[in-house]
């Protein structure tokens, strides 16, 4: 079972339906016991960084997330804002601390071009990774005004180009983040989400 964390931010229904179509069980939840018992966890998110951290805190989820990642090494996927929350902090509407699971910062796009970065853009895989097994580079649907700059380039698994190189997928051990919405990114997105789900349940089966 994959726990989709419900903290009042984001489009949970679409990602849950995508998992259903792939044949994976899921629960939309903010219950820490269910999250702890899951094979893997998805942290979705749409909205503002500071609000999102506040909502996680209110529900006592910050410690739960840190614990399952650090202590248990449970697979976790942050999507869009959910990926940004994995980092040290963000400049969105003043400085806000993030979950600090991966060192790095979230900054606003700056320049004489359209913001948000909105639409289908090409993913470039930076390195081979189990997440990419059977997946080809393709287009994904992005919509964001802030982007992540990890401190360690080795945490970057895939990038895209939007007036600069933009971090698209990050990964560190069993912790992943996707800046685009895999559940809205056609075939490529479906395969990536499916790979994550498979990594979760492989682990579940081994237990």
């Amino acid at each position, binding site marked *: 079972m994959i726990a989709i964390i419900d903290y009042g931010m984001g489009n949970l229904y679409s990602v849950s339906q995508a998992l259903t179509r792939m044949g994976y069980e899921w629960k939309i939840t903010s219950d820490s016991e269910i999250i702890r018992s899951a094979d893997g966890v998805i942290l979705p998110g*749409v909205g503002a960084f500071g609000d999102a951290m506040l909502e996680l805190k209110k529900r006592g989820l910050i410690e739960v997330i840190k614990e399952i990642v650090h202590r248990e090494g449970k697979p976790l996927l942050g999507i869009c804002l959910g990926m940004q929350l994995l980092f040290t902090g963000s400049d969105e509407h003043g400085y806000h601390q993030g979950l600090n699971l991966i060192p790095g910062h979230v900054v606003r796009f700056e320049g004489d*071009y*359209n913001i948000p970065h909105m639409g*289908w*853009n090409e993913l470039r895989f930076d390195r081979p990774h189990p997440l990419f097994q059977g997946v080809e580079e393709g*287009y994904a649907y992005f919509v964001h*005004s802030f982007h992540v700059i990890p401190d360690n380039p080795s945490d970057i698994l895939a990038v895209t180009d939007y007036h600069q190189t933009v971090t698209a997928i990050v990964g560190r051990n069993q912790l992943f983040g996707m800046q685009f919405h895999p559940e809205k990114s*056609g*075939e490529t997105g479906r395969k990536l989400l499916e790979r994550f789900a498979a990594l979760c349940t492989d682990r579940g089966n081994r237990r």
Partner: protein
Amino acid sequence: MITKRIIPCLDVKDGRVVKGVSFVDLRDAGDPVELAALYDEAGADELVFLDISASHEGRKTMVEVVRQAAGVLSIPFTVGGGIGDLEDMFQILRAGADKVSINTAALQQPELVENAASRFGSQCIVVAIDALYDPSEKDWYVYTHGGRRRTEWKVLDWAQQAVDRGAGEILLTSMDQDGRKNGYDLALTRTVSDRVRVPVIASGGAGTKDHFVKVFTQTRAEAALAASIFHYREVGIEDLKAELKQKGVHVR
């Protein structure tokens, strides 16, 4: 590089697609969800559902349509038509829509754009603008209520205002060109897309593949919307994308 987007628009009334659709291989040509899934498969980049229901029940039906669409689509979609306040937006977004589009309500209370952007994020707030050229004033004016009422707003001023208040995208419909199938209004689209720094969706007037080529090569529109030419299969999405690629337009 970011790609140009092709967006079919489905007019939905009381949960059914209107504007005769001639898809022979659809079991139910009036089912918006089935039609949407077909466009997803054909390579549409995004979809717009425009709810033209007049009744409260029709609106409630739309929320159900959104829920079903979110269950099958693997591309993003926008819902517009009759959205009047934050509660309407919340219902539609919670049901699984990626963006909401507001038109008349935004002009009646521009602070709605700000409130919506701060509550849901700019990325899901589309401001739809219906524009008609006034030859005596030599400028485009904004119309509301489905194009029936003229406002005092010039299109460029309102577009800029909407963006300043937090709109993440502008859906720009030329009333002059709408339904005529002789091409997008390039002058209007250029005027707005040159100025605002959010994506502009060109709408109204598409009749041939070449019209899409023109709007993407001669303006800064990031997306182009059309309805009947897709529904009647006068232009197929795959064909259109092949043509755009050949003409050097970057598409998915």
